[in-house]
């Protein structure tokens, strides 16, 4: 398997759409072939080689793509990613991890809006895998999520987990307005208390489960420690649509 490094040549002046980057397809390509792949941008089409210096190393146990440089203007990184690991060493733009299917994507900075959400008219957002953001994320994170895990180490914007079908989202910091609107199933885990719409979510009740021990052991994040897990409460909803989702947060 190969490990691919994309290093941003200089700050991007236009938005670049990286949704056509497919690690599973790129794993068998040479650096030259990757450089020739074209990416849509707001000022016309560019190639990967125009924006990034590309290097490929073989011998990696799993396919791996490492992106370096500020990627705030790059949207759709990790779209439908399914095998291996994508690591973004800095901030990323909107639609990061959109419709993720498997594998893992790590953002060592902040993410824009629509983290893991569907692009365009797609009815399903993230559908498997792990999406880890060490910083904060923007609005509409986890929209229409069906499977998989999203872990956000900072804060998150408005409309988190809108129309969530299932899966797990963890947020260490604060969350914006309108949390889990239309949530059907799935789990939201907060590291600090959040305000939920009382018409849509049940009152919090103390929560204990052996599953918390599993989560503490296996979680892809380090903020789910016993101090937090031992004092969780759970709210259920969205009751407006007979949803059975659950929101965990620490007791006040």
């Amino acid at each position, binding site marked *: 398997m190969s490990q691919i490094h994309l290093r941003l040549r200089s700050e991007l002046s236009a938005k670049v759409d990286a949704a056509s980057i497919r690690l599973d397809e790129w794993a068998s390509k040479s650096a030259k072939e990757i450089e020739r792949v074209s990416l849509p941008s707001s000022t016309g089409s560019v190639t990967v080689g125009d924006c990034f210096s590309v290097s490929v190393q073989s011998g990696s*146990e799993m396919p*791996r793509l490492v992106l370096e440089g500020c990627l705030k203007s790059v949207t759709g990184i990790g779209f439908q990613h399914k095998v291996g690991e994508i690591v973004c060493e800095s901030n990323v733009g909107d639609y990061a991890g959109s419709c993720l299917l498997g*594998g893992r994507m790590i953002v060592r900075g902040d993410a824009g809006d629509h983290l893991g959400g569907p692009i365009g008219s797609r009815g399903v957002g993230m559908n498997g*895998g792990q999406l880890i953001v060490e910083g904060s994320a923007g609005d509409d994170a986890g929209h229409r999520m069906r499977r*998989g895990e999203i872990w956000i180490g900072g804060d998150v914007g408005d409309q988190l987990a809108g129309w969530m079908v299932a899966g797990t989202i963890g947020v260490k910091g604060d969350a914006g307005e309108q949390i889990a609107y239309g949530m059907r199933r799935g789990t939201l885990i907060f590291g600090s208390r959040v305000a939920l719409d009382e018409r849509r979510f049940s009152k919090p009740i103390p*929560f204990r489960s052996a599953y918390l*021990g599993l989560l503490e*052991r296996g979680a892809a994040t380090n903020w789910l420690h016993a101090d937090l897990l031992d004092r969780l409460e759970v709210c259920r909803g969205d009751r407006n649509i007979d949803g059975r989702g659950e929101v965990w947060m620490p007791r006040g």
Partner: protein
Amino acid sequence: MQLHGVTIEDTFAEAFDMKATRLILTADDRRWCDESAAAMCGFGTSVIACGIETAVEQTLSPEQTPDGRPGVAILAFAVSGKELEKQIPRRAGQCVLTCPTTALYAGIPGGRDVHPKRVPIGKSLRYFGDGHQISKQVQQLDPDGKTRPVRYWRIPVMDGEFVCQHDVGRVDAIGGGNFILVGRSMNSVTVACRAAIDAMRELPGIITPFPGGATRSGSKVGSKYAALFASTNDAFCPTLREVASSELPAEANAAIEIVIDGMSFSEIAESMRVGITAACEAAASEGLLRVTAGNYGGKLGRHHFKLKDLFSGESLGQPEGSP
């Protein structure tokens, strides 16, 4: 051959193919865990009448369990995969789901791509949740870069939630490894048996499913009664020494058998070596006369554990394809 002055007979233990699985049972504290495990493994001594042979394999510390709580590993053996698939959900439903604070996990690592034949646990028990059960998949990224999620069920119960893994793989295994302790008195074989079982208790990959690890009702294949396929091993019954063909020496007045089920041939062989050595060390001076084994002339199974080979370091004659 003599071991600590005890005769090791030149014979072999005859064992047969079985299907097996391993479960990890945890609870908030050791007492709930042990009580649930005792119920789960109760009446699991012999496939002759119990459906499965099952017992605690090892005690697990919180660091060794998936959820960080005290636990045990339980091994279960059946003559067919179908029987295992029937018995495990029944026992889990009645003995683990019912016991406060417990959770049940797969003890055979690997998903459907590694072990395509699976024994249902949460897959069956989830319906107890009456629609309130929650399925959670924990994403697991394997070294090849593929995500293989592990599915758990969270079933609401009166102390909170019963957590149970969806299913567990089943593997080929061996049942019926054995050795027979022959002594001058009941006390001599009791001392020998307890020393053997204590030494074998923490060995991985094996169980001794009978009460205290041993049985006095060792059986032979077949019976004069057509309905029975096993009956008392009259060759080792001291009261029949003068009336039937006997394998007991004149001074022997008691014999008990230690039966071992194991995940592999080598694990059973090692456990027999450890058990026999401990028995001879402890009971040679108490009147343990000899150690022999139950073989049925090849009628029972293809796995033969030659007692002498256990101590010679030679190949144990493991048949091709043995687990």
